[in-house]
């Protein structure tokens, strides 16, 4: 893998009053990498991700996202990233096509481009017949695949996935990961936050946050070897329980 940093974070601190949510974070994420950002509830994942998405300013430290500074260039950051969450991604009361047009329109894509790309996308997802179907009547697995496709529709450099695959059956889940591998293979950087440790096994590298700090950062294979355990779940339990 080429090692071109696309996210660089140095000594990043975020405080809320006297509470330190992110305590001196330093890490790089490389172009085309699938990077897992793990931690228990309340470890500080969401706080850090909001900063990386240009939604919140750090208290101190540096962070650069796709060439843009998190203090000065928050608008440019937002234009160059995609975001998908399990909790909220698509408008349930809009149709498949209306959702695509809405998101693509927000990112400034032209109507003609939207039309052409939509046709290709629906064909690829085998959703041609569902173009005018309301999102709320689609099965969860289709929604997730569509939500991911919409999140990368404007060709972002980085896509942030916030607990993306909960609840679907194991085959659908793997189809979803195939899409993620495909995007990464085309050079999109995939930044996944999750507290489901089996999702972590799919990432090229993972960081594990404990109490606001990065307690470990390596490939899943190396982390398992280092801690002499079989699964990322066991790695996580060792790190989180020692805190």
């Amino acid at each position, binding site marked *: 893998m080429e090692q071109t940093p696309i996210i660089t974070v140095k000594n990043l601190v975020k405080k809320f009053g006297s509470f330190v949510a992110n305590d001196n974070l330093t890490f790089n994420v490389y172009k085309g990498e699938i990077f897992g950002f793990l931690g*228990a*509830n309340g470890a500080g994942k969401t706080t850090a991700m909001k900063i990386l998405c240009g939604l919140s300013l750090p208290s101190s430290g540096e962070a650069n996202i796709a060439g843009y500074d998190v203090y000065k260039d928050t608008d440019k950051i937002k234009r160059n990233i995609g975001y998908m969450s399990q909790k909220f991604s698509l408008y349930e009361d809009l149709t498949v096509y209306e959702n695509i047009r809405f998101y693509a329109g927000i990112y400034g894509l032209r109507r003609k481009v939207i039309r052409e790309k939509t046709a290709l996308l629906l064909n690829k997802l085998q959703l041609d017949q569902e173009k005018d179907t309301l999102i709320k009547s689609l099965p969860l697995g289709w929604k997730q695949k569509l939500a991911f496709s919409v999140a990368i529709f404007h060709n972002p450099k980085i896509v942030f996935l916030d607990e993306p695959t909960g609840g679907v*059956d*194991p085959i*659908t889940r*793997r189809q979803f990961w195939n899409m993620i591998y495909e995007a990464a293979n085309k050079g999109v950087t995939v930044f996944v936050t999750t507290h489901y440790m*089996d999702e972590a096994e*799919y990432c090229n590298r993972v960081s594990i946050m404990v109490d606001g700090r990065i307690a470990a950062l390596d490939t899943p294979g190396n982390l398992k070897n280092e801690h002499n355990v079989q*699964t990322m*779940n066991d790695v996580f339990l060792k790190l989180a329980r020692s805190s």
Partner: protein
Amino acid sequence: MISVQVKELTKSFGEVTAIDNISFDVNKGELFGFIGPDGAGKTTLFRILVTLLIQDKGTAFMEGHDVVKDYKKIRNMVGYMPGKFSLYQDLSVEENLNFFATIFGTSLEENYDLIKDIYHQIEPFKKRLAGKLSGGMKQKLALSCAMIHKPEVLILDEPTTGVDAVSRKEFWEMLSKLKENNITIIVSTPYMDEASLCDKVALIQKGKILSIDKPSNIMKSFPKPLLAIKANNMYNLLYDMAEYKNTHTVYPFGEYLHYTPLEKTFDIKDIESYLASKGHINIIIEKIEANIEDCFMELMKKN
């Protein structure tokens, strides 16, 4: 001794058959898991068992009581923890517990022994409002409330969904301790890796039970030999293995993919040279035993 007995149970909502002719028995004191994705029918089944829904067809007995006719008796002897946090957010921990105890005509003191191991962990926060608790603590409070009346059967609907790995582990440890009280526990989960923590599991998908047995027996009955394969580029590896002549299934499993052959067996040397010819490097191929997720996917494919 049979604690829960379900025969040919069916429930539809309009066009959708949520559960489709399901039968199973759960023994007294057993920890029984329903493993399946969202929409499999787990919640519908549980709501029938706790008398909150009435089935279209079939029968269900809890400790010998019919869920339709004897619903009042059942409500006194079943503890139910719904999937959505359903306690009073604006009452404190202690107030919630006292409320549920009073409804069931008992008190916190009377059954303190049963819940003490769990309640002990949240007791320091007993004055805190339930809505202000962390996910793991909410779960412990909900379990305490579900057990305050000393139920014979506990029904827990996805208790570990949305909580982190540490709380999940603690929760399963609590359940195995509870078994010592000879309480029957029926639990549902979308996480395949939790199957091995149950005495017996039913794999459930689209309202139907795919398989029902001890987890170890389900894994042993996997019908194909299985290989784990790894190389430098997972995306290309998945594509190339799907195109390989002797391929039944190829699924990503973390850093590896799992492969089953179309024929009865496979030739590791041939796979190696095929992948090398496609430009893969650092190829690792290992023969492995199936896990519950492998079994679930194979059963889904068959059905």
